[in-house]
């Protein structure tokens, strides 16, 4: 199998690292070589977070090169737009219709573009827009937004749902299993 690249981007505190951990672990479970990369440190204090996940028979670089991502999963829409040059021609964009204002915007020093979704769609008409917050609330906890989005992504990857469940159970506390699996399913059914 050719190496596949998935980029997950958003803002520190959105649960991106857990989502990308679950994705990587699932690929390891099905016997693939996996590499994933993100930077810890400064960027966690409310800054941009980008996680690169790559899997296949043999993976070399943990970083995705520009124009090479099969899928970009954006937890926050401005961050999705920011990383768009990493998308492959005909790649898939999954974007959470969710805004977190960067500090310069909140302080009135910069503006948040009004029509991020339509800007993305002008180049990628098939971009899939998700309202993950409502789905997460429906699942029983607004904080399960990251798992909703992971569910959306999972649909695109054609791996048995049981393996995803197994990996989720191995990683999250037992008392959150049900909420997380509900969140995952709600995401899975979006497409």
């Amino acid at each position, binding site marked *: 199998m050719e190496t596949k690249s998935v980029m997950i981007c958003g*803002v*520190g505190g959105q649960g991106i690292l857990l989502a990308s*951990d679950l994705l*990587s*672990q699932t690929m*390891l479970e099905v016997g693939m*070589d*996996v*590499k*994933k*990369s*993100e*930077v*810890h*440190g*400064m*960027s*966690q*204090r*409310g*800054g*941009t977070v980008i996680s690169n996940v790559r899997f296949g028979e043999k*993976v*070399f*670089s*943990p*970083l995705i*090169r*520009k*124009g*090479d991502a099969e899928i970009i999963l954006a937890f926050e829409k*401005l*961050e999705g*737009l*920011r990383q*768009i*040059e*990493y*998308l*492959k*021609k005909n*790649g898939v964009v999954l974007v959470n219709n969710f805004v977190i*204002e*960067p*500090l*310069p*915007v*909140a*302080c*009135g*020093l*910069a*503006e*948040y*573009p009004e029509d991020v979704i339509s*800007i*993305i769609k*002008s*180049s*990628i008409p098939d971009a899939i827009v998700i309202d993950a917050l409502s789905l997460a609330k429906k699942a029983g906890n607004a904080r399960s937004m990251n798992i909703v989005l992971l569910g959306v992504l999972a649909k695109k990857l054609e791996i048995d749902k049981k393996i995803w469940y197994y990996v989720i159970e191995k990683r999250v506390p037992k008392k959150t299993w049900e909420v997380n699996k509900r969140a995952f399913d709600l995401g899975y059914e979006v497409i």
Partner: protein
Amino acid sequence: MKVLLSGNEAVARGAYEGGCRFAAAYPGTPSTEILENIAKYKDVIYCEWSTNEKVALEVATGASFAGARALAAMKHVGLNVAADPFFSLSYIGSTGGIIIVSADDPGMHSSQNEQDNRHYARSAKLAMLEPSDSQEAKEFTILGFEISEDFDTPLLLRLSTRLCHSKTVVELGERKEVPVKGYEKDIKKRLVLPAHARLRHIYVEERLKKLSKFSEQFEYNKMEFNDKSIGIISSGIAYQYAKEVLPDASYLKLSFTYPLPFKLIEKFSKNVKKLYVIEENDPFLEMEIKAKGINVIGKEIIPITGELNPSIISEAFGKKRKSVTIKKMPSLSPRPPALCPGCSHTPVFYTLNKLKLTVTGDIGCYTLGALPPLNAIDTCVEMGASLGNAFGMEKVLGEKSDKKIVAVIGDSTFFHSGITPLINIVYNKGTSTVIILDNRITAMTGHQEHPGTGKTLMGEDTVTINPEDIVKACGVKHVFTVDPYNLKELKKVIKREVERKEPSVIIARRPCILLLIRKREVGKPFYVDTEECIGCKICLQLGCPAISMKNEKAYINELFCVGCGVCAQLCPIDNTMIQRENDS
């Protein structure tokens, strides 16, 4: 068993499997998780947060003297702090195997410079290994102890941010117990006074020759022949990037990168038509290879500055991919990191800004006080610099200067390297004002314990060392502790102390808000009474991520607000910012 481990986790695992008994570090991105993960093996590996990197290397050296396998880990600039013992240790060599881990930060994700610590191996004349993924990070840690013992050398294990923080597949092994050799006095080896050191220097030069031979046959210095029209020499994470972009080229992958295997390099160069070196940051391999008269292309096409990545290599070799472009891309606001809502540093910087003071800064979360809208810090050099910088400026500018100078330093940074410059201020008759931002933890790097927290890395209770006691013992007579949430008091004390003609220290004490959130000890959120709010935007000057404007009125995001109430103290209209009585 196969698992996904980050490079840092893999080094920790390698220390465990390789029989390490002693590990020390001072935290620093991207190296911090090495010791945090070694702590999982605390039953068999003694481990600690040392007060700084120099101390970390000194205690590890002591453990090696006693015959145990030992490791000291630090970020790249940490090795500058530890450089003094590092160079002596090269002459002394090892008893128990000793590894110094240097985690470099190309791209400066969380650092003040982009220094390439491979140069340290050359200047200190000791062995160096560079892994290119987590499996190698684990194996090279184990091998590193063996090489260190076999060749009586300290070993530099050189990592970089992407290696430290990327997870790749690792096959786990068992721990090999290595007995502690015990201590035997040998002053010719361990007491480097000139008469002994002269002999040890001769030994070091001999050792380099032996290590060169070893490097020639080291199994991880490896040729991979493919299309011979392009030959690439590479090491570390750069090798993985190159393989990604140029899978069909021939490679000489180097892992033992000091001293280099020149015979192997020559052999490889003769077998390929065009020879390239692909390396991140400095032309370290390139200069060594060129000095041997072998012609290579390197920094002509691969930049020295910034983090390397496969996109850059693609472009350098004319293999850029077509990517999606947005026709009308708007300008996107950057998303800089920010001080948290309720951060105890925020009111201090707000006050320093309002008092228009010149502020020499230091390194920690609080360096973010330099960014807008706080704009409160003038300088940041390295850990511990704020005090000396303030003193030097004051001596030159003198009392006539219309701007008063204040040094700000975090608690962990104060213990790390703030004490000696404080003594210097007192001893050399300074008048500096120092603010210690005591949030009771090493926050920047993810909440590590330090001498002021009462806990060790191994989770044991220990004495709590109070900055007040240290400051007084250094001879400072004017020491004041304030709660930074109390804006009036804070302003009064700072204003008074900068005028004083003697050294004074203000300790602004309140635990890091993230610690309080974890303990659920935060207040109820505030909201804005929009009828009262006059839209003056004074509250926005705090740069609190919970506050923004909505319809010309202040708006508080109650999901973020932790109820510190600092904004309410600033608000010119009474009863505009109101604290909820119950969770909404």
